């Protein structure tokens, strides 16, 4: 430490840890600690003695797996998960299908107005989810909706977009609208990194643009499709803002519509942070299992492709 020669290598060796210190501290305080606390809470419960009055009447005690058994048997949590599954089955394929389509179109020869349309399709990224849900919510609302107006003039029946089956489509549409642009940019960026020579040979052989897109471009961008698919699934599982914002406009969205809304409701609506913690832990574990399962499957496919 005293002589400059001995301090030199120490400085280099310690430097990366120094640079990573702020991130590590923040991670410990705002990620690791809260997660650990949630897991701990999930094994606790409130014990009420007597009538629950007075200072010593309520105390926190060990609950074992009680909260988890309750969460597994909670039909509302399961229903929420099924609702989100149905919602995800619409959102993910439609959003990524559109993103891929637009990216391929942007990448095609002699396309006009590409800078304008690219920016326009990306624009919803800059619109907060709450505002997006609010805008579409008003467009769905029969009193002000242009769709209802047109259908009314044509003498056609006006479906209630904020109820029953259409509600899923209405919610899915908000997510598709908000997410297509970002995914389009990710896919388009990886399309542009494919060298032009790759297509030249196919063009000389007389391949149509459609054949080039299907046989060359899509397989080339498969890794970015895997990535966008992965992140879309995670975002879908976490849906919260859009149904919460639509709630004031319709009675069909309950306070427990999605599993995360149920967690919020249990923690702050019912003040049962222990059940909420157990449900939250359960959802986090399912998310992680799905993520790793998916990444492993994707890796295995990569290896198979490489081996061929």
């Amino acid at each position, binding site marked *: 430490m005293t002589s400059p020669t001995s301090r030199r290598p120490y400085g280099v060796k310690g430097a990366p840890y120094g640079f990573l210190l*702020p*991130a590590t501290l*923040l991670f410990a305080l*705002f990620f690791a600690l809260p*997660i650990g606390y*949630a897991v701990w809470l999930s094994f606790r419960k409130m014990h009420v003695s007597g009538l629950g009055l007075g200072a010593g009447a309520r105390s926190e005690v060990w609950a074992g797996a009680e909260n988890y058994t309750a969460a597994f048997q909670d039909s509302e949590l399961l229903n929420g998960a099924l609702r989100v599954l149905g919602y995800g089955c619409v959102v993910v394929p439609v959003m990524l299908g559109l993103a891929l389509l637009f990216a391929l179109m942007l990448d095609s020869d002699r396309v006009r107005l590409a800078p304008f349309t690219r920016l326009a399709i990306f624009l919803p990224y800059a619109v*907060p989810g709450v505002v997006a849900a609010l805008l579409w919510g008003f467009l769905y609302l029969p009193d002000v909706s*242009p769709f209802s107006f047109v259908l009314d003039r044509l003498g056609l029946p006006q479906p209630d977009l904020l109820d029953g089956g259409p509600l899923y489509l209405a919610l899915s549409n908000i997510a598709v609208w908000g997410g297509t642009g970002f995914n389009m940019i990710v896919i388009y960026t990886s399309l542009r990194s494919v060298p032009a020579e790759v297509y030249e040979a196919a063009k000389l052989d007389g391949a149509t643009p459609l054949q080039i897109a299907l046989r060359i471009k899509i397989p080339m961008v498969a890794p970015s499709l895997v990535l966008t698919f992965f992140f879309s699934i995670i975002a879908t599982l976490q849906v919260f803002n859009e149904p919460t914002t639509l709630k004031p406009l319709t009675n069909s969205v309950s306070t427990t519509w999605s599993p995360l809304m149920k967690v919020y409701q249990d923690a702050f609506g019912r003040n049962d942070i222990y059940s909420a913690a157990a449900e*939250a832990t359960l959802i986090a574990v399912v*998310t992680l299992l799905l993520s790793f399962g998916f990444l492993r499957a994707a890796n295995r496919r990569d290896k198979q492709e490489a081996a061929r």
Partner: protein
Amino acid sequence: MSTLAVREAAPAAGTTPGTTQGPGWRRRIALVPTLTLLLGAVYTLLPVAWVVIASTKSGHELFSTFTFLPGTGFTGNLRDLDAYRDGVYWTWMGNSALYAGIGALLSTAVSAFSGYALATYRFKGRETMFNVLLAGVLMPPVILAIPQYLLLAEAGLTDSYLSVLMPQILSPYGVYLARIYAAAAVPDDVVEAGRMDGASEWRIFTRIALPMMVPGMVTVFLFQFVAIWNNFLLPFIMLSDDEKFPLTLGLYTLLEQGSNTPALYTLVITGAFLAVLPLIVLFLVVQRFWSLDLLSGAVKS
């Protein structure tokens, strides 16, 4: 050096690919792609166009005139919004700017430190640290926010500016982007040359590496600015005093009250219009020197 990567990526923003065609080919427009993209643009611009038009309508016009017919009430709506609870709307907008501005700045600094360390040093536990930080992306925000709230409540910090600001400083995606940009923009031999000259590691970072990383850091800043500006859940859980609300939460409470009193609809709509305006302007302004591709981690065209 640092601007080179951006310059290379920049043409991607607009130019049509394919330069090998003859002059006859060049004049022909590819109809299907152009129309498909235009349809996409109509779809994405529709709600934005609606909110622009709806914000010009008075409460009466909103329910009586055709949706896409401009009204006459814009200045009246602005006045109503300004008068609502002594102009609390402007407080919300100021709060959003504060949370997003300061939060994104701190987040960019933390990402730059971490990304630079992960990209240029070989050290024990590097990949583990990177993977652990990245795993943060997988955590559903509600699952983090509820225990964060309970812990901050223990510290007496809930319902404060800090409670919204602090949890958003570390951004896993920001660290990921910063690592990619640092690896691409800062050559190892430049860092080595700095060491040969006897510069300290800190000095090498601030004087040599950081200027090279600027374009990437602008991206991290924008990404995080948008993420915090758009965040609803964290302030929803942390705050109860509406003087500290950001725009998203303010508009939500306005809508919640509005569901009983349609007279508030025009306020919500005008407020929503003004809420998207700053970010759209921000993106249009930075378009000149910054490419969208950078957002997905593109470093070269």
